């Protein structure tokens, strides 16, 4: 494990909203190619952790390093450019845009021609648009959404909207992809498909994955390492087996039944 390079490293990352410490001194490392789970009860601070990593909030103290560079407090767009992309717990697609256009917005981050070409509609801009569309189409193929490329994204069923968010994030060509409750609202079949897709993202595309999920079967079946948060504090870290039998985790989150 330790020969692999560290991709993301949180060191005592902390954020305080008024009197509430939403994330308190959280420390963990992600290695390249990790499939990493972040779990904990409602309000534990999981989404806030994502917001710290992606620059939505600036940490009150502590450091967040991505590929060795400090990212805490940088602008979200800058962090996306460096190679971290995410999905949102409460789906945030571009509703009026088509499925394909949503993905092209993601792909646009890696475009090359200048925007001035677009105002005059010259061949470089046109060709680039075509190639971005083609890349986006390939990703839709991977996410099994190609047949709906032309529909308005708001018209997709819930499960497909979640898959589209992943496709859009993948289009930015990130090193690290953060998935916030990707299986929420999916039926068992969709969840199973999603597990396979997430594995493929890691194995085939070589991405490092950090995901939040409440469905324990989903997390335990997919992730190789897990961090557990409770009230902003990190209460455990380790393999699924270790987490499942950790008394602190059972008390705070899993309950006796698991």
């Amino acid at each position, binding site marked *: 494990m330790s020969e692999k390079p560290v991709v993301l490293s949180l060191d005592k990352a902390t954020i305080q909203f008024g009197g509430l410490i939403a994330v308190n001194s959280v420390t963990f490392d992600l290695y390249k190619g990790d499939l990493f789970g972040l779990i904990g009860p409602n309000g534990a601070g999981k989404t806030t952790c994502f917001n710290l990593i992606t620059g939505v909030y600036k940490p009150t103290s502590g450091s967040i390093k991505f590929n060795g560079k400090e990212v805490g407090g940088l602008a979200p767009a800058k962090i*996306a450019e460096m190679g971290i992309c995410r999905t949102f717990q409460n789906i945030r697609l*571009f509703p009026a845009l088509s499925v394909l256009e949503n993905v092209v917005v993601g792909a646009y981050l890696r475009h090359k021609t200048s925007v001035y070409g677009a105002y005059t509609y010259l061949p470089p801009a046109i060709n680039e648009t075509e190639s971005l569309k083609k890349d986006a189409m390939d990703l839709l193929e991977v996410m099994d959404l190609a047949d709906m490329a032309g529909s308005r994204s708001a018209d997709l069923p819930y499960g497909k909207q979640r898959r589209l968010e992943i496709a*859009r994030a993948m289009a930015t060509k990130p090193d690290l992809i953060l998935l916030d409750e990707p299986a929420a609202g999916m039926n068992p079949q969709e969840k199973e498909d999603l597990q396979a897709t997430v594995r493929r993202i890691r194995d085939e595309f070589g991405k490092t994955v950090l995901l939040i999920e409440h469905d324990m079967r989903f997390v335990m079946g997919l992730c190789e390492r897990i961090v557990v948060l409770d009230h902003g504090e990190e209460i455990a870290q380790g393999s699924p087996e270790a987490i499942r039998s950790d008394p602190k985790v059972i008390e705070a989150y899993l309950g006796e039944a698991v």
Partner: protein
Amino acid sequence: MKFWGVRGVSILAGLGFAFGLETMVSAGLPNIYRLVVLAGLFITLAVSLNLINGITGQFSIGHAAFYMVGAYSAGFVSNQFYAQQSLGPQLWLVVMMVFGAFMAGISGFVVGLPSLRLRGDYLAIVTLGFGEILRIVVQNIAPLGGAYGMNVKPFGSPPKAIWIVWTLAMVCIAVCRNLLRTAHGLPFLAVREDEVASSAMGVNVPKTKVTSFVIGSAFAGAAGALFALYDTFISPDTFKMDVSFIILTMVVLGGTGSITGSVLAAVALFAIPEWLRTLQDPVTKVAIQIPGPSLVATMLAVIVAVALVKLIQDRFYGDKGKKLGLYVGAVGAGVAVQFLLAALLKGVPQLAKLSFEAAALRMVIFSATLIILMLLRPQGILAHHEFSWAWVSKLFGRRPSEANA
């Protein structure tokens, strides 16, 4: 090279249209010269506001301010230097247009900055406030003519402007449309749809917003410069809030985000009041009078018809043909109500005595049309659709591939 062929033809067609309009209007219909100039300017204003409002989603409603910046800066500079220049009136007009666009672009940058922090209504108030403050400041600057306004050189002999005005309108349309046809326009749309998601996807949200403000206001400023030099007189009253609202209405009515919609609505909103102004009997040339009973009956009939149409729109699903039949029925019911009521109300002596001049009712008709449209089609005439040749050939039952063959 097919690409350049198509481009060449469309640019030539555009210029041909502009010069054709120029020749036609100045030869045959000199009295509508001013109207055609203003129509071109309002198309530019509506489409450029649509870039800010409809495409980038920044609720800016003080567009007349940029129009004013362009007009006053071009007017002032033209007065200072017109005598010394040796470019000729038309080239001078083009130079002033570019200058007006530049100055308005700068002010667009300044007004765009609050859009980085403010959203929705708050931004709307800032943009409107900017326009009003600017107007009042100009009212108090003596070298700009203060509240009396300013004559702009060349006085009294406006340069032939139609082709320049309409070329500007076409360039403005082309820029917005080109942007939407390539991937480069998507960040603008993404910012409109969801700022948080946009920035997470790496879209530079502040830059995108400010860019749209700068481009949009630069086009408005270019239109303002042309207006100043064409009309040769500008005053703060020309750029009051209601001009901003008319431009905004054009954008909303056409369908926010649809360039085609903005163009159509700009022409319609501009032409309807002008046309109503001239309503008169074609034979006797006397202004048309509407008797009181008919007026009241018509108003009530319109309300009945609109209510029925709205009901059908909301409550009936399915078969299109059947729905169309119901709409026709609703309109028929309106007409019937009109005839019936008109006949009945003739019996009311106080009402039968009254009559109104049609032209005087033009603002009433105008606002009623707006209200009805917003009730029945709140997404605007064209919603987010655009005109395209593929759509035209579909309309005539031919597929584009066949049309090309």
